[in-house]
């Protein structure tokens, strides 16, 4: 677990921001705590909060969550060989711990990753994520008019920042820009709340067909 201590402050702050924004978007403390405990996936929780606040139907939020979290397939497949020999019942529980930060740290250290290092990191990340979210949700209840301070803009701001740090190849820019424009057009021209899932899958699918597989 010690090797993951450098992650703790950044995960804590990220979770505090999420908790504060979720509270201001109208989620109750119980809803925030439940989401942290059973979903425990930061990016998709950022995505879900403004959708819930805007009154999107549950199915649209759930489908969007699934698509945002599909990247876990990649991590789980990479981690799997490291967990050979573990009882399957444990693995069913350990699966809930797959997260970006622990994965990145464990793979950077050794490949195939050390399963015990990964598990220690999961404990550190989860503790700081849930602690940060609870602190944030209490603080968030203290601000009464979030739009006045531009806090509603924090959601798209986080999404845009997360995209920019992931852009690596020229094709990535086309996929990101194309998805944004397609979603804008769908949201403007059609009713309903499916522009995120449709534009996300179409743009990433086209990108995966057109780009070279080596760009993975």
């Amino acid at each position, binding site marked *: 677990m010690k090797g993951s201590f450098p992650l703790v402050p950044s995960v804590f702050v*990220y979770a505090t*921001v999420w908790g504060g924004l979720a509270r201001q978007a109208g989620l*109750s403390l119980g*809803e925030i705590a439940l989401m942290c405990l*059973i979903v425990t996936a930061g*990016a*998709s929780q950022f*995505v879900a909060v*403004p959708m*819930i606040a805007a009154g999107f139907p*549950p199915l649209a939020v*759930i*489908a*969007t*969550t699934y*698509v*945002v*979290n*599909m*990247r*876990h*397939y990649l991590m*789980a*497949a990479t981690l*799997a060989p490291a*967990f*050979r020999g573990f009882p*399957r019942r444990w693995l*069913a529980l350990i699966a*809930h711990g797959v997260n970006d930060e622990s994965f990145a740290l464990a793979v950077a250290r050794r490949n195939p990753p050390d399963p015990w290092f990964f598990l220690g990191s999961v404990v550190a990340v989860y503790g700081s994520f849930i602690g940060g979210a609870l602190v944030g949700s209490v603080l968030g209840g203290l601000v009464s008019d979030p739009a006045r301070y*531009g806090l509603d*803009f924090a*959601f*798209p*701001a*986080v*999404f*845009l*920042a997360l*995209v920019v740090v*992931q852009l690596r190849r020229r094709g*990535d820019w086309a*996929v*990101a820009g*194309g*998805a*944004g*424009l*397609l*979603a*804008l057009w769908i949201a*403007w021209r059609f009713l309903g709340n499916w522009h995120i*899932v449709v*534009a*996300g899958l179409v743009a*990433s699918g086209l990108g*995966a067909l057109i*780009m070279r*597989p*080596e760009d993975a």
Partner: protein
Amino acid sequence: MRPGVLVTIVGMAAATYLTRAPLLLALSDRPLRPRLRLWLRLIPLAVLPALAIPMVLLRPDGNPALTPANPRLWGAIVVLALTAARANLLLSVAAGVVVVAILRHFGF
């Protein structure tokens, strides 16, 4: 807890578990095929702008707000510029929020 939100959160948890558990439990040694890996890497790159761009450029009534009088547009430009210049992520977001708050304060 609101019943609709409870359904949403439980559904989110189930959907997320479905992305984590199957391939870990399969314990397969075979790596994913390159084009599948590429697609899985591109999905967040497509979903996040698909979410963000309409939030920035559409008004709550669903019509485009492609004018310089839209505070969110300037906030987005600041966030994109700062993250592209490799500024700290939370700092970039905070700067965007401050720009939006200032513009709103002056009535935009």
